[in-house]
C-alpha cells in the first residue's frame, strides 16, 4: 500500500501531467500544422479579437440564444464545469500535497465548500446521464464511450468523497481516488474531454469566420 501510494502521488503525477500537457500541445500542433497544410485560409481569416469575443461570450451563462432556450441545461453545465475545474485545484488536501512536494502553496477551499462542489459535480454527471437516457435526441447519438467518459470524470469525485468521509476501506479508497484522477487526466487528450483545448480552438475559428468574414455574430 505504501509503495503504491507513494508511486501514485509521486512519479505518476509527473507521468499524468506530462501526458496531459504534451498530449494537448501535441494535439494543438497536429491540428494547426494539418490545417496550415490543407486549409491555410483558416489562418488568413483568423482574427484575435473575434476569436476572443466568441470564446468569452460562450463562457458567460445565458449570453447566447441557445443557452437561454435551455435554462436548466445551462445552469447545470456551468455549475458542473466550474466545480469540476475549481475543486481539484483548490482542494485543501491537494494544495497541501503540492506544498509538501514543491513548497508552493495557494488559496484553498474550505472543506465544506469543496465537499459541496464535489457533490455538485456528481449531481451534474447524474443529470447528464439521465438526460442522455431520457432525451430522445441525446439518447439517439449517445455512444457507449460517452457514458464511459462521464464515468471517468465521476470517479475521482466519487472516490474523493468516499475517502473524505472515510467510508469503506479508507486506504483502498484513497488509492482508487488518486488512480481515478490519473485516469481522468490521461483521458483528456484522447477523448472528447479534449474540448478543454478544442473549445477555444474551434470557437476561435468559428468566431473569426462568422464575425470577421460573414459579418454576423456566432451566438
Amino acid at each position: 500500500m505504501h509503495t503504491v501510494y507513494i508511486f501514485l502521488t509521486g512519479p505518476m503525477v509527473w507521468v499524468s501531467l506530462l501526458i496531459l500537457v504534451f498530449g494537448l500541445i501535441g494535439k494543438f500542433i497536429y491540428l494547426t500544422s494539418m490545417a496550415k497544410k490543407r486549409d491555410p485560409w483558416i489562418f488568413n481569416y483568423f482574427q484575435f479579437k473575434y476569436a476572443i469575443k466568441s470564446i468569452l461570450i460562450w463562457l458567460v451563462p445565458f449570453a447566447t440564444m441557445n443557452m437561454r432556450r435551455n435554462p436548466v441545461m445551462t445552469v447545470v453545465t456551468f455549475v458542473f464545469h466550474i466545480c469540476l475545474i475549481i475543486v481539484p485545484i483548490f482542494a485543501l488536501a491537494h494544495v497541501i500535497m503540492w506544498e509538501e512536494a514543491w513548497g508552493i502553496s495557494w488559496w484553498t477551499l474550505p472543506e465544506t465548500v469543496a465537499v459541496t462542489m464535489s457533490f455538485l459535480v456528481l449531481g451534474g454527471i447524474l443529470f447528464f446521464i439521465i438526460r442522455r437516457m431520457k432525451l430522445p435526441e441525446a439518447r439517439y447519438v449517445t455512444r457507449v464511450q460517452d457514458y464511459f467518459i462521464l464515468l471517468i470524470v465521476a470517479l475521482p469525485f466519487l472516490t474523493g468523497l468516499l475517502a473524505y468521509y472515510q467510508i469503506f476501506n479508507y486506504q483502498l479508497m484513497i488509492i482508487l481516488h488518486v488512480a481515478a484522477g490519473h485516469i481522468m487526466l490521461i483521458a483528456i487528450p484522447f477523448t472528447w474531454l479534449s474540448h478543454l483545448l478544442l473549445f477555444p480552438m474551434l470557437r476561435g475559428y468559428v468566431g473569426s469566420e462568422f464575425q470577421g468574414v460573414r459579418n454576423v455574430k456566432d451566438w
Partner: protein
Amino acid sequence: MSEAATAAKIEDPGLDQGVEKLTRDQIQSTILKVVNQENSARLRAMVGTCVSCGLCSEACHYFMSYDRNPYYAPVGKVKETLWEMMSRNGMVSKEFIRRAATTAYTECNLCKRCVHFCPFGIDTAYLMTVVRRICHLLGVTPQYLQDTCHSHSATFNQMWVKDDEWIDSLQWQEEEARDEFPGLRIPLDKEGSDIMYSVIAPEPKFRAQLIYQAAAIFQVAGSDWTMPATPGWDNSDMAMFSGDAEMMGRLKKKHYEAARRLRVKKIVMGECGHAYRSVYDMGNRWLGFKDMPIPIIHAIQFYCELLRAGKIKVASRITELCTFHDPCNTVRGMGLHEMGREVARAFCPNMVEMHPNREHNYCCCAGGGVINCGPPHKMTRVLGNRIKAEQLKATGAKIIVAPCHNCHGGLEDIVHHYKLNMKIKFLGDIIYEHMQKPGAVE
C-alpha cells in the same frame, strides 16, 4: 403523428443506379481520400470534439417538423454519415452510402443555423458538404441535381441555356421594358461599365420578368451597367452543392473572368442566396482567393445603397402586413439582415417580424441544393418545414419578403401545402412596383 412521419422511401435513379455500380474497395478508398487527404484539422476537430449533447437538434427545421425525430437532428445526421464512415475506416455498405446521400442531399440545407446552437461552433453544414463530396466522387447524386451539374459542365450555366438563347432572352426583356421605359437598354458586353449584373440561369429560363425588373431599376437609378454575352453570366453553382468542387471552381473562375474581361468595377448579383455563398465563401477559397477577386455585392446591398443615395425613391407603399424572411446565405453568410429590412421597410411600413429572425431564422428548406433534387424529393422538404409554416402563420402577414430564389421556391411550396394564403415577393418585385419611375410611359 404528423403526415411527415409517414414518408416512404424515395426512388431516385441518380441514387439508386449510382450505388449499384459501387464496390466496397471503391467506397473505402474514396471515403479515406476525402476524409484523410482532402479534409483536414477542421473535420477532425469538429468530429472529435462533439460530445453528442444534442443541443443542436432544435436548430434544424427537419428535426422540428418531423416530430422531433432525432434522426433529423444535425448531430443525428452526422452520426448516420460521417461518424460511421470514419469509425469504420470507410468500410461501409452500398446501402449505407445510399442512405447517407439521401441524408446529405435532401435532408440538410447546409443553412448553418445549427452552428449558432452548438457551444463548440461545430459546422454541420460543412460536415454534410464532406459527405456530399464523398457521394459525388462515388457517383451517387440525386438525378435532378446532377442534371444541373451536367448543365454547368457543358454550358457554364445551370439550365442548359444556349449562348444565343441567353442573348435572345435579354433582348426580349429589353424589348418588353422599352414599352415602359422608351430609352431602356440591357447593355450586352459593354466593356468598362461600372457594374456587371449577373443572374442565375433560372431567370432567363423561366423568370425572365426578374431581368426586366432589374433593368428597370438600373434604368431609374441611372447605373452604368452591363451583362456578359458569353458564358460566365450565370452566377449559380449547383456543383458546389453536389460536391463537385472542381466544377465549382471552374464556374466561379468563369464568372470572375467575365467581369475582368468587361473591366467592370464590381459585380452586382441578383437576389440569389446560394450564388452569393459560392462567390464569397466556397468558390473563392477553392480558387485561392481570400476575398472575392473583384468586389461583388448582393442585390440587397445594391438596393440599399441606391435607396440611401436617393437614386431610387419611394412612390407608393404596400399597406398590407409584411414580414421579412432572412435567407441563410445573406444572413448567416454576410449579415445583410439589417440592410434587407431597411429596403423592405422603405416600401412596407407595415412590417412584422417572424420569430426567430435574423441570424436565427428558420431555413426555407429549399436551399443547399435540396429543391434542385427535384420532384422526387419535394415532399421531404415540404413536410420537413412545417415549422416554417407555423412560424409564418404566427405573423399574420399577407406578404413575405424573401430576397432569395431558393427561398421563394421553398416558401411557395410551403405556403401552398399548408394553405397559408400569403404572397412571396423579392425586394426587386417591390421596388419595381413601388418606386418612382421618371421617364416611364404609363
